[in-house]
């Protein structure tokens, strides 16, 4: 079978790894194969945190050039940093809230208007979903549910291989019980938003 390749990226602390763990647990529940690659250590201290996932029968999680079916990006500029993994057929789900690195204030690098990164992505890819996941998470009751907003939105995209029942079961296994309501709300709100955008 053809593998389904997901490139997830963001900045250390945004919940990239947690999101992918929930996808992995959902795969285990559904009975499909998954491999994933994470970056730990020095790279995590406020740096870019990419994770690569293949769902199916792949041996290695490392996605080929242009090979991502889905990009889940927690940050506008980071979505474009992933470009070598994206093709015009990649679907991108992107959080529109930027995180400005210290190098910008130091004057050693620039962060363009976030809209420019998003427009660039929109012009290069056939399908994109842009959402202010931070505000949605807050509305869901907890800003920390941002990653579940992103997962919910991703699950609304065509071709996404994991059904809600498996994702919810995985969330219930992996997330604290007291935060479950907010997380489920966040997931649903992300899903609805993406569904609307994709129409």
């Amino acid at each position, binding site marked *: 079978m053809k593998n389904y390749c997901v490139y997830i990226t963001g900045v250390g602390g945004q919940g990239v790894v947690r999101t992918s763990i929930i996808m992995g647990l959902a795969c285990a529940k559904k009975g499909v194969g998954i491999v994933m690659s994470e970056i730990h250590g*020095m790279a995590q201290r406020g740096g870019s945190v990419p994770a690569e996932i293949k769902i199916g029968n792949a*041996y290695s999680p490392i996605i080929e050039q242009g090979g991502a079916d889905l990009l889940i990006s927690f940050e506008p500029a980071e979505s*474009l940093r992933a470009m070598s993994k994206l093709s015009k057929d990649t679907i991108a789900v992107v959080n529109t809230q930027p995180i400005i690195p210290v190098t*910008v204030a130091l004057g050693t690098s620039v962060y*363009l208007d976030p809209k420019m990164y998003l427009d*660039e992505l929109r012009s290069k890819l056939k399908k994109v979903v842009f959402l202010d996941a931070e505000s949605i998470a807050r509305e869901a009751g907890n800003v920390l549910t941002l990653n579940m907003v992103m997962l919910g939105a991703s699950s609304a995209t065509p071709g996404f291989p994991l059904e809600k029942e498996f994702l919810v079961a995985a969330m219930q296994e992996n997330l604290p019980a007291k935060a479950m309501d907010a997380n489920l709300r966040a997931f649903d709100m992300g899903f609805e938003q993406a569904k609307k955008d994709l129409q």
Partner: protein
Amino acid sequence: MSEILTAQPGTKLYLLGNEAVVRGALENGISVAATYPGTPSSEIGDVFMDVAKDAGMYFEFSTNEKVALEVAAAAAASGLRSFVWMKHVGLNVASDSFMSIAYTKINAGMVVLTADDPSMWSSQNEQDNRWYARLGNTPMLEPSSPQEMKDLMKYAYEISEKSGLAVLMRTTTRISHMRGIVTVGEVHVGKKKGEFVKDPFRFVPMPAPAYAAHKRIIATLAELAHDADVSPLNKVYGKGGKLGIITSGPTFNYAMDVVDEYDLKADVLKLTFTYPFPEKAVLDFIKDHEAILVAEEVDPIAEKEVFAILGKNGLVRKIYGKLDGTMPMAYEYSTDILKAAISKALGITLPEKIAITSDLKLPVRPPVWCPGCGHRAMYYATKAAIEHLGITNAVYPSDIGCYTLSAAAPYKMADYLTSMGSSIGLASGLSVATDQKIVGFIGDSTFFHSGMPPLVNAVHAARKLVIVVLDNRITAMTGGQPNPGIPLNGMGEVAPEVSIEAIATAIGVGFVKTVDPANLAAAQTVMEEALGFDGVAVVVARHPCVMIKSKDKSTKQKLVFTVDKAKCNQCKVCVTKFACPAMFIDKDGTIAIDQALCNGCAVCVQVCPEKAIGVRR
């Protein structure tokens, strides 16, 4: 309790390679485990700390890798199965004792895991520790997935016990930090205590016993070479065809994905039991093919073995690999790299997926200290002290840990670094070689790891230099493991604290002072005193790691720091000189504080010349 310990046989868990290997140890009756944390091996220790007590075994975070290896060796010599792991450069630290293990012949299985870091995601070099198998006469296994990291522990202990040698397991970042579904087996509780039976001719490798032992080792390795040749761990994944691809670890995965995706006619030989090199198995594989592609990270080790086999057997084959330029000599491989190499070897062109491109400028996002990190405050205070004293020639030898990030702007205060503990040894040398002002920086865990001998050296050599010990009360860069400076051990129990100040004083350091760098003025004063001291001065800058503190749910109500926009004259000292990632230039050009990132250290309040930063409860 962690499911890594409790999961019933047959359960499928979604585990990191570094988690799966712990289950492997637990399934094989491990009694003693030890490590010094280092990426990409650190999570192994985190899991053991979590499960050791309930598993009825012993685990410790040792002061360094050499001690960890010795703890594991002593356990194995006493008849207990042991496990020790470290990042690749950690094996350099442990190498002195590692080299002697083979000469002493252990009594129970011992596994040494080295987590190599091709592409240097979190390391100072790209050394290939497969050389250590050869150097240390140690059989080696190379897993390619989390499932194998677990499963190979069984083989590793069997090989170790059969041979009396330790077994080296070589992973890389992409295997240690690969997550996948792992089917677990049954946990077997190891023996609690063994017994050390004296046998000096064996355990004390003086010249005569070592002389005899080397011959025994050679014979043992010859037997193991046969085992490797017939081992089911070395296996051909055949699709037929004239090309044979020799792989191990992650390169097996890349090769298989290419062969599967494009349905290519090529056979893939997966080598898992890789030292002693399975010469006969590889010879058979070579004979069956017209051309061979060798895919290995980092050095051309297997490739040279292949050439030796060709030479010995008078065979001629086209060998694609690093030596003919087909494969890169440096950095980790990928599916794309294997795809290009296999296409070349088969003389075919495979369809390319076209990646998008963009000319838009992307921000540089390097790793930085967390908001509220005490290191930033101490570097800021040190810089202020240096400037206040008019010192213009200061050199800052550095060390391994979060403070290595001082190399970046705006601090640029890491000038020379070679290894763990190097700050103090290099400081000594720089003070001999130059007339410059020498200020070395080292962390608490690193000080215990390898900072003490060079400090003794500096005192005894009567050097004039300043050493700042950045004591954040944890081993931080690797994710937050305990060290001898805090009252907690690897079993999660209360443990005796070892005092850095008492050590420095006992060594004979003439100036030992402690300061909390969150008080900038006090830190600057202490640094100025230390810089004026005629001898070795040690400043302990003690401020708990914010990453650890933020896990502490008991913290009182959070203080909210804000910038008074009326007072702020946009001098930007806070963002360009102090450079806290929680502070940023807002759309209107004024400074703002991101409340989600701020950890409330209050140092920016002291940094601001206009007193524009205030607190609100």
